[in-house]
């Protein structure tokens, strides 16, 4: 493919609507809200693209969340998601309808699809955007964290169309759903051949509860460090996490000591997390650790050493013995929960 001869042929803002086991992902709804704003600035329309099997009801849902039109591609071969058929559907529809902008959720499947698709149709794709705007020249300003979150890069795709971006989940709000909002459902058919079905999903194992969830996905994280002294003391961290409905993470020292699996590790040589609440227990706060969690919305530190650097970047700190403080915190949280279960009038 070469550069589009005339960029003005490309119009409209598209959202890849990601269905997951009978539901539309939240990030797809969030992107419909983003797309409405971009389309308003560009004087164009919002279209959703919905490939899948038995996904008809989601087409109307997408319209109620802001799509003017949904391109529906119903095919039993499009469930579950696999890379090649979805890339074929998107490439075919993009070549046919020429959208100006295509947005994806930066989910595993969204990135799997976007990465393959952008190479096939040869256009720009910015990953994991946290802000999407139209600049003064009418280009999509795709803003994403770079260099480990130390800065925000503005990515432009000036000559190629469509301009494509994946957006980080849960950064943009879900727009209000307007029951009865009308729009057009366009049924498209893209032939999926046997040869397109090169990947087969032969097994799926659901993760249940918080244990085993990727730590990046947790809204609340309780993280344990070397201050716990022994692996068995990690149950304090697990108990507190359970009480708060959160996940469990760890510092590098705790992982290196073999107390917890390596996918628990927060920091520069581990995972970068940004939960709503991060509770650091017995973690002194080495620079490498801070780099992996300093974007958390609120940070609580529990540590014996008042000079520990974790106290310099926390919102709340408690100086003291974690073996007394954590059980006390669990106890008081339980007490509050029990109290809340009592009707207000009876308190």
């Amino acid at each position: 493919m070469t550069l589009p001869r005339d960029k003005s042929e490309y119009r409209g803002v598209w959202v890849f609507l990601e269905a997951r086991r009978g539901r539309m992902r939240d990030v797809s709804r969030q992107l419909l809200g983003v797309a409405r704003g971009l389309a308003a600035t560009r004087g164009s329309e919002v279209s959703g693209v919905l490939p899948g099997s038995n996904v008809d009801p989601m087409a109307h849902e997408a319209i109620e969340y802001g799509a003017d039109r949904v391109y529906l591609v119903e095919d039993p071969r499009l469930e579950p998601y696999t890379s090649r058929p979805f890339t074929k559907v998107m490439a075919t529809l993009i070549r046919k309808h020429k959208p100006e902008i295509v947005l994806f959720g930066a989910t595993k499947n969204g990135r799997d699809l976007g990465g393959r698709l952008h190479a096939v149709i040869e256009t720009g794709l910015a990953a994991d955007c946290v802000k999407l705007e139209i600049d003064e020249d009418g280009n999509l300003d795709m803003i994403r964290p770079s260099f480990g979150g130390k800065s925000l890069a503005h990515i432009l795709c000036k000559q190629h169309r469509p301009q494509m971006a994946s957006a980080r989940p849960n950064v943009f709000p879900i727009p209000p759903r307007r029951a009865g909002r009308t729009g057009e459902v366009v049924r498209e058919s893209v032939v999926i051949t046997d040869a397109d079905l090169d990947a087969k999903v032969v097994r799926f194992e659901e993760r249940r509860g918080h244990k085993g969830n990727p730590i990046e996905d947790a809204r609340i994280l309780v993280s344990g460090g070397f201050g716990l002294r022994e692996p068995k003391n990690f149950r304090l961290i697990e108990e507190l996490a359970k009480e708060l409905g959160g996940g469990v993470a760890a510092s590098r020292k705790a992982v290196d000591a073999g107390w917890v699996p390596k996918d628990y590790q927060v920091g520069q040589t581990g995972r970068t997390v940004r939960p709503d609440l991060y509770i650091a227990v017995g973690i002194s706060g080495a620079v490498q650790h801070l780099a992996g969690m300093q974007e958390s919305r609120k940070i609580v530190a529990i540590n014996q050493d008042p000079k520990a650097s974790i106290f310099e970047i926390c919102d709340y700190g408690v100086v003291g013995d974690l073996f007394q403080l954590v059980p006390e915190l669990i106890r008081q949280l339980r007490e509050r929960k029990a109290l809340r279960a009592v009707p207000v009038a009876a308190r």
Partner: protein
Amino acid sequence: MAAKGPRSIVCIKQVPKAQELQVDPVTNTLKRVGVPSEINPPDRNALEMALQVKDRAGGEVLVVTMGPPVFTSSLEEALAMGCDRAFLLTDRILGGSDTVPTAHALSETIHKIGGYDLIFCGEETTDASTGHVGPGIAGHIDCAQITYCSELEYLGDRVRGKRTVEDGYEWWECPTPCVVTVNFLSNRPRPPSLTGKIRVKRGGLITTWSCADVGIDPGKVGIRNSPTIVAKVDTVQLPDRKAKVFRGEPREAVARLIEAMVADGVLPG
């Protein structure tokens, strides 16, 4: 001579060490000159996965990188870990390539090597964090892909990979050739061995190619043929956290902590 068993090609990148990531205040780009660098950490997991396939099924592991000649040090390390041969694609015209020309150039290099069964990449790089090059290569050479893979079984004409998704794990079965992007931290990469280091010392394991050697169209690569540009970079001001620190008797300190968190709306009232 073709070895018995699968031929794996691992694509690696050399990146600035995580703790050395710094933005040049003048050019607003990543400081690369004079900054200590290393193999992109997830690429080590990709190397390890490929070497494990070789441990079990035989065959050979080749390693490829695209970049300036200093990237040779990463190729030497990969060879010392157990890779059989290495390829460096280096050419000034590749400078400033974004993910589209990078996937193109690596695909052409892989095609030139030929005879491959498996192509491995790390799930993403720590300096650009896109994760687009692996699936981009699969798109270019039109083969199957398994992304975010943590375990892989080689089954002769196909592979079965465990793929991490948000709500669990999927097992994908794909015919070879197949691109596999490997989850960061999914295994413990082996250190370079002494015998490996000696092999590297003896030399002759690294092939250096220019774009012309591979047959890469100069009109397809480099900054001028990259769809995206970084227009500007803003420094992020991290929130100034005014720590409320509590001390003293545990029951009292915890009560004050909860009280403060409730008052700020961090915990429900």
